[in-house]
């Protein structure tokens, strides 16, 4: 089936099988491997991207469902060589160790700050409940999101 999607600001058209998952489409067809595949069972959140501004687990959606939609992946956040405040926050606050969960974590945090620009620590934890990290114990991730909230508020 023909689909047309706008990924990180650029429209593209592809012919895909209906059973192709969005995450496989992004990684293998569009070549954007920043979106990771973790559990494949809609638990871990590593594959989180924004579709129409909403955080979704791209392993639990078919590419054909995204026809006509705007998609943001981790590759779309930095602008003109400048890290996005969330990326900067993860850097400054040591929000990652192995980095596997980071792209999904950042895109979930992106939606969280879009809905609630000044979240409390508890709201940050609730907002990231769909993303698992096996390294950091989450503390530094929460700090990274706080950093971004502050940096964006300036």
């Amino acid at each position, binding site marked *: 089936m023909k689909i047309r999607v706008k990924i990180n600001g650029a429209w593209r058209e592809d012919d895909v099988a209906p059973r192709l998952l969005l995450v496989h489409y992004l990684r293998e067809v569009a070549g954007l491997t920043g979106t990771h595949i973790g559990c494949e069972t809609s*638990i871990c959140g590593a594959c989180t991207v924004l579709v129409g501004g909403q*955080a979704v687990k791209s392993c639990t959606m078919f590419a054909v*469902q995204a*026809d006509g939609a705007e998609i943001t992946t981790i590759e779309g956040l930095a602008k003109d060589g400048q890290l996005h405040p969330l990326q900067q926050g993860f850097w400054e606050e040591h929000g990652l160790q192995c980095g596997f969960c980071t792209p999904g974590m950042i895109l979930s945090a992106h939606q969280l700050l879009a809905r609630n620009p000044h979240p409390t620590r508890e709201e940050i934890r609730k907002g990231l409940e769909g993303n698992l990290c096996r390294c950091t114990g989450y503390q530094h991730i929460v700090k990274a999101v706080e950093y971004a909230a502050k940096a964006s508020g300036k």
Partner: protein
Amino acid sequence: MIPESFEYHAPKNLAEATRLVGQFGADGKLLAGGHSLVPLMKLRLAAPKHLIDITGIGELNYIREEGDRFEIGALTTHFQLESSGLLKSRCPLLPETAREIGDVQVRNKGTLGGSLAHSDPAADWPAAVVALDAEMHAVSASGERRIPAKDFFVDLLATALQPEEILAAIRVPALPARGGDAYAKHCHPASGFAVVGVAARVVLDERGNLAEIGVGITGVGPKAYRPAALEEALRGKSPGRKRLEEACAHAADGVEVNSDLYASAEYRGHLAAVYARRAVEKALERASENSQIS
């Protein structure tokens, strides 16, 4: 994990969707959010030949106030229900239940109708719609009918919907004066599903006795149910702590209680009593606050 091949259909309105559902019968499956169905397809526990994606049907996505009732389109997402200011003030049980479902990403995509039609015995919504005596509005190419919540859930993953029918809307009563409701859930720590989930709505009379009570329990048996003995023990009575505790001991009476690696039937039965008490207690507390205001 790659599902079996299927043909994809994306009808733009309800009429087109009912036609496709009628045409494909058992070979077709509705996609209404996909957060139960897609994982099942990836595990190849489900392999529909035709996937009918109804999520683009705007006419099934709404929250409408109709006098003392709400009609909610089946494709309203958990997030929309969770964040509706109207529901928070007029039917707070729904946002409170929505908030407990899965995680943020799941709530963005998952829908009320999709969850109800899937009838997972550990899903959250069945408790709320059973407690509220909701009415399910089913539509097919040849007509429509309303199914009371108590008749809607038939068994594990089975509802009263016929293969050619689509669940189009759900109608629930708004919170009445001197009413209160609450959802109390023991969440499975990994999956987020309800090990036990109890929804309660109560209405007090002028003297503070329980005029009406509706309780819905999910996670405990093969389908959500109303604990009749529990409700009977409280209806018309003054709700003291001791009476509440005694009544809630009947939360799983007559139910074949589920047992799994996480919770044995005995433990789950115990949780049912504890969470029933917490839900009813919280609902009473809110009802009594609402009585003072009005």
